[in-house]
């Protein structure tokens, strides 16, 4: 379990990083290294050079800017978890982050690393998709933005160009009528999910005015279950609307088979999560 030999540069600017990304045969950015280092150790990748972005202070920090919360790509999971800003402004993220790995991994793993790795069972890409976050990326033409909902393409595949670096994520700040739900099913706490669900809803009384249901671990990428959402939007949660939403998941999800579950079981579990989270949100409204 020793990696292939590689070169290493700790860059001091985004421009330097982009130049290296363009020049090298097989460059690879390293952030927290929590996913990349095991990949290297198992010789599943053979980069010619690691570009360590750890020294770029522009990629750090968590900051409220008007109605978005900007999370730097290098923000560690542990920072996000401890952040009062996150807890207040993006409660869905606050709920999700404790499911990401374990303390040792959270101390080094970064927000940007998790987003760029694009593991279909990861929590943070799903949260960004559910909330309609926006990613700031830097490349040879300078800064541009990519909506989270267009960012995740397939297993470990994103819309990032080979010479681009994720700089930050902008997550919309929650408004009073929004409700959130999060649940995942994993064999052990901290494992990648077998299936998970991140929910954003805007309620009008007991009616679901808006509903974003992002499933992870249920398709090759985090997906918004739009058919399921449509079955509930504009209505109250009843046995019928709930059942209609669950039935619609067949059209929304493309579950894969692995050691933990086959496609059918994944679909079943997705339905269980959907019922539970919708019931939680609707239940709270009824109490008010």
């Amino acid at each position, binding site marked *: 379990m*020793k990696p292939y030999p590689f070169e290493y540069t700790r860059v001091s600017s985004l421009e330097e990083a982009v130049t290296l990304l363009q020049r090298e045969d097989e460059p690879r950015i390293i952030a927290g290294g929590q996913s990349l280092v095991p990949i290297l150790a198992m010789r599943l990748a053979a980069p010619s050079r690691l570009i360590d972005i750890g020294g770029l202070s522009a990629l750090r920090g968590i900051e409220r800017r008007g109605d978005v919360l900007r999370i730097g790509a290098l923000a560690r999971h542990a920072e996000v978890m401890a952040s009062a800003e996150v807890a207040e402004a993006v409660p869905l993220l606050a709920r999700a982050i404790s499911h990401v790995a374990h303390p040792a991994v959270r101390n080094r793993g970064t927000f940007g690393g998790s987003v760029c790795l694009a593991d279909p069972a990861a929590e943070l890409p799903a949260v960004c998709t559910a909330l309609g976050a926006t990613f700031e990326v830097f490349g040879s033409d300078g800064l541009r933005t990519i909506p989270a909902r267009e960012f995740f393409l397939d297993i470990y595949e994103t819309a990032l160009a080979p010479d681009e670096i994720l700089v930050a994520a902008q997550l919309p700040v929650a408004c009073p009528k929004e409700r959130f739900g999060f649940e995942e099913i994993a064999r052990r706490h901290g494992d990648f999910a077998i299936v998970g669900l991140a929910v954003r809803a805007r309620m009008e009384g007991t009616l679901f005015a808006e509903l974003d249901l992002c499933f992870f671990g249920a398709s090759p990428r985090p997906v918004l279950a739009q058919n399921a959402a449509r079955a509930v939007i504009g209505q109250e949660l009843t046995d019928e609307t709930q059942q209609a939403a669950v039935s619609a998941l067949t059209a929304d999800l493309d579950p894969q088979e692995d050691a933990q579950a*086959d496609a059918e079981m994944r679909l079943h579990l997705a339905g269980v999560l959907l019922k539970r989270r919708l019931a939680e949100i609707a239940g709270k409204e009824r109490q008010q």
Partner: protein
Amino acid sequence: MSKQILRAPIGQSAPRERARRFATGRGRYTDDAASLRGLHAAFVRSPIARGDILEIDCDAARDMDGVVAVLTHADIAGRYRPWRAGNALLPEMKAPEQHALPPSRVNYVGEPLAMVVATSRALAEDAAEQVFADIDPLDAVADIETALAPDSPLIHEDCGSNLCVSLTSGNGKFGADFEDADLVIEDTLDFGRHTACPLETRSMLAEYDPGSEVLTLRISHQCPHQLQAELAKILGLGQHRLRVISEDVGGAYGLKQQLYQEDVLVCLAAMQTGRPVRFVADRLEAFASDNHAREHRVSARIAVRKDGRITGFELDDLFPIGAYPQYPRTSLGEGNHVLRMSAAGYDIADFRSRLRLLFQNKALIGHYRSVGHPVACAITEHMVDRAAAALGLAPETIRLRNFLSDDSYPRETPTGVHLHYLSQHACLDRLLADMDIAALRSEQAKLRGQGICRGIGIASFVELTGTGNGFYGPGGIDVSGQDGCTLKMEPSGHVRCMPSVTDQGQGTDTGIAQIVASVLGLEVADIRVLSGDSEITPHGGGAWASRGISTGGEAAWQAAQTLREQLLLVAGHLHQRDPATLELTEGHVVDASGAQITTISEVAHICYFRHDLLPDDMPTELMVTRHAVPRAQLFQATNGIQAAYVEVDTDTGFTRLLGHWVVHDGGTLINPKLVEEQIRGGVVQGLGAALLEEIRYDEDGQLLTATMADYLVPMASDVPDIQVSHVTSGTAEGALGAKGVGEAGVAGASGAVLNAVNDALGPFGATVRQMPISPRTVLTALRAAAASATTPPFEDAP
């Protein structure tokens, strides 16, 4: 009620001596040992389960920078003796020849094909990728069902079949109808393949000194003397020129108990290159090449009368052991314990069992903590619960009616196991009190009304510990059932203690020191224990069958008694007292009134330096060795019982552990805290077996679980509180009366969880018959029950 008056520090929860070093980062694991001009090994391993080796091209690898040697079968043939794992007591058992590197055929994924030795592990891995093995693939035997089919390929053509051995036991006729039965229930359980997953992987460092012709192997191992004996035979060295050192070992659990090809290969490479050669398995190769354990398919039948009496029990164990039996102990142990220890705590008139060991194109099955007992426990307790359910009896009621009565010993089981004493009833009574069974049941009933599905499971077990020389020695296998202890009192009165038993984290060293300190009237800190070095410690078993204290402690006790007598003899002479009236206490020699006469250090000093004060014929040796071996009982049979309380989410299939209880009879407790740590640690491994752990291969024998992300072990957050209680019967052989405790936690944990989950699923008519009990297993069982019932258990979630 022990035979001797045992005084402190016996019975005290002294902290584990080595823990201080570990906690401060000063452990001395094998890979911590520096080596001058040391080399590193990497192995080319078979990527396929079965095939013929056409060619292994090493030219490119040999030319690489930093590569010192590349070895294949052709390079080492004739320089060592291949081995066969058989037992002379079972001449019908097939023991195919095993090689350090295969001459012509590979038989499992991960089998070493070639060894690369280079100046760093990274370079060795680079070169290993440049070794090109041309293997003609053959159909693999990977399925338990088809291994015995007439058209199945033969893994070992010279064996004539894939059946390694078939054995039966018991007092009834296998396969015959039960005579005295109102009801006979049949069922089959599948047990997943495990591996022990020690934190420290297999590690070794071999060094050969041609000057003195001494080979030193530092290795993470639990039986250094056994390895010394085996390597001497295989390498053609005198046992006195082979030194095996296992200093700190980061967990062993039976996985580091046998001989592996790599052990032989690092020695051969060190002898060939004249340089130290190190190998530390990485986790990928650990999963592929470490011993696995526990894969069993056990079918059983239980016969009961309406009054709840169990009148007959029959079981049939299919046990696929991998490509070869494990050397030197063979792979029989697991199956043998299923064959002979199932239902051992029950009074059953007609018991029969059959065991068949199958060859498969998979890694070898060896021993894993509690060898076979968890399987014996689970199948027994599952069948007993099924009988109870069929008769409408509570699980504890059927057990009370059928357990061997606590006053019926000594006795023999139908499988010929001598039971000196068991406390089945006392343990059950204690368990029911500890868990407050009535309160738990009413909580369970109340929650069921709210749609929360909880289960309570009980599992009792009988375990063989501290095994003597009954099976290995007479079978021609040089595994010691005897253990020894050397004590050397220094002129200062401090003691160096060299036991043959070894410590891989159990705290054996500390327990031994407590025993020696107790006899000599010293403190634990006055005793320095040096275990794990075959050059200085007496030849003995090391760590197996929970022998550290039950056997090793007995040897230490005997040695300390002899040393004590010697000290008292000299002190008596010096002070004109009858030695029989003297005692050693708090570093002093005291008289019957407790008055201090002299210090132990003064007596020791005189024994070394002042022979002018002593008569010529007075013995003055302060170095003693004693050995202990279970003779009358051959082993110490122990017993215990466990209970699990679980919650099953019937929508997702997930099982959550809420509580776990253990009551165990370990005889005298030398160090209660260490005993409880042992039991808790074992329970956690059993919980892993119940819910999480499984080595999986596909139908072609390809390994599917090669990382810790695929092979799931329990983490702290998955484990409930584990309450441990003791029943102490001082009935063990020997002066101390201590029985083995190291494996009891594993023995009953998985069976208890299985029964708890099935208790939870009872109202749905569902039964799980497979471990680990994954969410998928539970959902499948619920679905099957729903399909055969009128009311669906998948009540649509709220």
